[in-house]
């Protein structure tokens, strides 16, 4: 296993090198490589089915890769000897469909992992969970069950739930795609706060305006490869690849 001491914040916090992944005969990722530095906000855009979600799921080892390497804070994610739970404590993930635990209240959703996984005392975890609920501007909704909350509210609880583990990196998988246009704003505002606080974020998104405003680096994927990438200023104005231009002209 790679020694953790070998990694310094100057090095990429996430590093993908020639990542391949197939589901049956369908090769979803065909050699993806890129680096994310600490505090960076990276946006991954591209047509659906281009492997964006799979890419994120590989970073926290929800999906095993076939070939290549993914390193998080210098450690190989797909090393069989790696403690996956240790990795997932550092990498938070928020899903398109929120995936809150429906049998637990919003507050319990947020404090569950710290109590069960990090073995924090209940009182301490609860105080922290209440603070996170305030941070995502949901004070007063602590005792509501997921079924009683709107999509945007559920998604913000899901963000708070991930933050409760105090992660170093946050993965956002099309977190606004299932939301009403009005509630998209609330969720984006929450992510904006995180980004401004210096959280390392990897977002798969269709919100081009948001990517342009907050992204440090944009990656465009199509059919399992990164077609083009760059900082938003150049990416959105002077894309060179015809596939990127076709995609952007459709969406902008």
């Amino acid at each position, binding site marked *: 296993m790679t020694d953790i001491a070998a990694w310094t914040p100057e090095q990429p916090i996430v590093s993908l090198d020639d990542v391949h992944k197939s589901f049956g005969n369908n090769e979803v990722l065909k050699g993806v490589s890129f680096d994310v530095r600490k505090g960076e906000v990276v946006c991954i855009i591209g047509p659906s089915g281009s492997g964006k979600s799979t890419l994120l799921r590989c970073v926290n080892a929800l999906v095993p890769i076939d070939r290549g390497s993914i390193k998080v804070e210098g450690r190989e994610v797909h090393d069989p000897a790696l403690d996956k739970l240790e990795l*997932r404590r550092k990498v938070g*993930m928020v899903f398109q469909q929120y995936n809150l635990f429906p049998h637990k209240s919003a507050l319990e959703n947020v404090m569950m992992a710290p109590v069960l996984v990090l073995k924090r005392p209940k009182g301490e975890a609860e105080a922290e969970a209440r603070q996170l609920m305030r941070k995502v501007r949901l004070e007063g909704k602590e005792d509501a069950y997921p079924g009683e909350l709107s999509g945007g509210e559920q998604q913000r609880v899901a963000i708070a739930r991930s933050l409760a583990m105090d992660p170093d990196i946050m993965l956002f998988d099309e977190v606004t795609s299932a939301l009403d246009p009005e509630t998209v704003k609330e969720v984006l505002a929450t992510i904006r706060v995180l980004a401004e606080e210096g959280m390392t974020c990897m977002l798969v998104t269709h919100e081009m305006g948001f990517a342009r405003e907050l992204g440090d680096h944009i990656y465009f994927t199509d059919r399992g490869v990164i077609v083009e990438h760059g900082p938003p200023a150049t990416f959105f104005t002077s894309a060179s690849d015809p596939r990127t231009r076709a995609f952007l002209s459709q969406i902008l």
Partner: protein
Amino acid sequence: MTADTSWKLSATLTPRFLLGVLALLALVVVAGEAWAQLQMGGSRSGILATLWKWTPLLLVGPPREFGGFALNIAVSFLAMAIGTVGGLVLGLGLISHFVPLRHVSWLMTQFFRNSPWLVLLFFVMLLTPFQLRLFGLTIPLPAWLKATFGLSLPIMANVAEIVRGAVNSIPTAQWESAESLAFSRMQTLWRIILPQCVKRMIPPWMNWYCILTMSTPLISIVGVNDSMTLTQDALAAEQRTELLMPMYLMLLCFFFVYCYPIARWTIRLERKYAVRG
């Protein structure tokens, strides 16, 4: 689909329907009574009086002995308890990531689900000794206990299937989000998945309880003083053919009165917990 069938069932099993059935039963008994009175010229006690005489025995067994319908209920409780605990363990075996365990669990489930209960019952009676020696203690194994164990085997297999089905019905997204929060597989199963399964499991579980209760008269053939055995004993003592129908009818009524409310309640819960969408 289940919600649909339960709706149709509940439409049939209205209280009015229940009253109709009971009225019909009463009519059969009264008609039998009148016919018996005509035949016997009133020389012997009437059918209703005879039934009444035997009712305490059939309900709770002979004096200072536990038996009758109460024994059927006790056996149903105990067999359900054993079957539920065993079924939970077996069901978790069915979804285990440890392949040999999964295969053994699958084989056990299929075997006990697809065997006739009566044959299983005989098999267990013959297989188990009449007493157990453990650490110098001699524990007697009465026939009713062995029979209970025999009935719990098919319940165990069916509960295992209920558990497996319920766990599989929880969206994989729940597993994913728990995993991404660094929950272990055991924590995910016990804290996230199984609590969501309980509601889905209760109606089919209650359904199996009713089926089990209605099958408890099977234990009469292995020499247990349950309500079925005692009914046959009472009929043998009376030696009156006109009692056959009313006596068995009474026994049917005991089971009906006990099981019907449970069936109604199951349907209500099923509708309440039905997955919307």
